[in-house]
């Protein structure tokens, strides 16, 4: 347990460094006063508003205030919407989570059968096709796959809606787009992990006992393959969230990604900061969970 306490404590400097990186970027971006005031504002007006917002303080004072505010749950106010930035992010969070979870499900549904199949029939044509598909999935840009899916299933055949969120049908294309990208990496991992497990002595024992191949593969081998699979799902959070950012744009999915890209274009830095902090925190927590699950699922692993 000591190890996890240490890991949890390590989050604090990491989060502090992230706030520093983000704040420095926002500081360089310059103050938003010019955007807030009408075009004919005088220099005095600008200076007055800067002073009122504390934007004329030195860097370290502003950074200190920023961290203190954040500790009290205040991530600033969006200049565009005039609302609490974190609240806006939380409003969009369910949509992004929905897409992310659906994509993981799609990835699991593709990767587990494909990975097991290609491992048990190593070097067969099935294996070649599966490995080939995995490489292709990695090589195809996600947003292009999304556009091609729209072209085929929405524009040409009108089976699924082009964009937006609402019904289950809206979810299918974005989830496939994002899910196949993750499935590519997952298939490769399950395959190599299965191959390793299948070479173990206990598998040979099970086989020599005369157990059916199906039982050996699923009961003995696959269960042990789950450890790396669970870990990779958690460790891919960063890739997954990166993917949602762009998939949301392609499908006009009203999640954090869309909010963030609009905010970057509008220089609405409060929202940008809030988005980055939420995403980073999420990634860190998922990595911790991955560590924890890894140990829970495989008792041989003990961290010092």
């Amino acid at each position, binding site marked *: 347990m000591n190890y996890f306490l240490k890991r949890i404590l*390590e989050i604090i*400097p*990491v*989060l502090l*460094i*992230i706030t520093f*990186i*983000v704040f420095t*970027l*926002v500081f*360089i*971006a310059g103050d938003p006063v010019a955007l807030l005031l009408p075009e004919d504002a005088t220099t005095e007006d600008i200076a007055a508003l800067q002073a009122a917002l504390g934007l004329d303080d030195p860097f370290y004072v502003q950074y200190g205030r920023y961290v203190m505010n954040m500790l009290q749950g205040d991530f600033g106010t969006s200049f565009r919407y005039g609302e609490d930035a974190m609240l806006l992010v939380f409003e969009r969070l369910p949509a992004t989570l929905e897409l992310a979870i659906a994509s993981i499900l799609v990835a699991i549904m593709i990767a587990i059968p494909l990975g097991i199949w290609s491992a048990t029939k190593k070097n067969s044509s099935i294996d070649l096709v599966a490995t080939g598909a995995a*490489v*292709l999935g*990695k*090589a*195809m*840009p*996600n*947003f*292009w796959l999304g*556009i*091609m899916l*729209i*072209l085929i299933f929405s*524009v040409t055949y009108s089976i699924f809606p082009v964009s937006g969120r609402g019904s289950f049908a809206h979810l299918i294309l974005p989830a496939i787009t994002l899910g196949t990208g993750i499935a590519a990496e997952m298939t490769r991992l399950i395959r190599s992990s299965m191959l390793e497990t299948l070479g173990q002595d206990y598998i040979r024992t099970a086989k020599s006992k005369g157990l059916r191949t199906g039982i050996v593969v699923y009961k003995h081998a696959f269960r042990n393959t789950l450890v790396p699979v669970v870990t990779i799902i958690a460790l891919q959070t*960063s*890739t997954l*969230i*990166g993917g949602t*950012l*762009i998939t949301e*744009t*392609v499908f006009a999915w009203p999640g954090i990604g869309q909010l*963030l*890209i609009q905010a*970057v*274009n509008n*220089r609405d830095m409060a929202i*940008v900061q809030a*988005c*980055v902090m939420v*995403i*980073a*925190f999420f*990634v*860190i927590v998922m*990595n911790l969970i991955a560590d924890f699950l890894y140990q829970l699922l495989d008792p041989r692993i003990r961290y010092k």
Partner: protein
Amino acid sequence: MPQPSIMQGPARKNSKLKRWLKLLFRSKTGTVGLVIVISIVIIAIFAPWLAPHEPNVIDPVNTHKPPVWMEGGDRENLLGTDNLGRDILSRIIYGSQISLLVGISSVVLAGIIGILVGLFTGYFGGFLDTFFMRLADSFLAIPNILLALVMLGVFGPGLFTLILVLGVTNWVQYARIIRGEVLSIKERDFVRAAKSIGVKHRNIIFSHLYPNVISSFIVVATLSVASTIILESSLSFLGLGIQPPQVSWGTILSDGRDYLATSWWLATFPGLAITITVLGIIFLGDWLRDILDPRSVK
């Protein structure tokens, strides 16, 4: 029985090259990868001579012309034209320049930062190591594309910023790999021997450690040129990367996205170009891993 080798420098080098080529042609995917990558490099270098048209010349009479094999298409524009009558093939040919330029130079930049950080933190350890590894953890907690988006939003889009931003966001993976290698190599006898006879730290790092870690860098770097090309096209697609009149595969795609219903070829071909290029680099990278890293198992 093998003959004892008495070959001198150049001859031995030659045989090494031969051995590599032999290994390359034994791997079908490696050969395909090399052919694709060399072709793309040639296309990028000779773009002005290979492209049938100027990439930005507008032709209001010939807008939305389909590819040559479809009705209404002709040999003048093999892959058709876009909403402004620009030749898609020429735009894709010119786009290869941006993809390779951004892909390679940002990986080199990230590599320089990553190798230096990895070598020094791995060798010296201590506070420096702790600091940089926490910094690396922080970078890893922010998805690459997110950090790149924010930085491009702050510094403004464009070719130069894009290379810089992608370089700065990608150094972490190299630093961690190189550091890991250094940690194990610095305990080996030849490094200890060098230390014990008083070789300067700087010389140990650059003459003993660096040559031993560079091959793992090359493997990872090759593969990450591929992912950087995808990242570049994604950012350009979002409008925060390459700006017109420069042509990127991502921007051609984003232009074509609005005309899916009428002109499918606008969004299809640049995506194919990205996929083929990235596939070639992945194949080449996998082959490099096989020959450079003896520990990798097929």
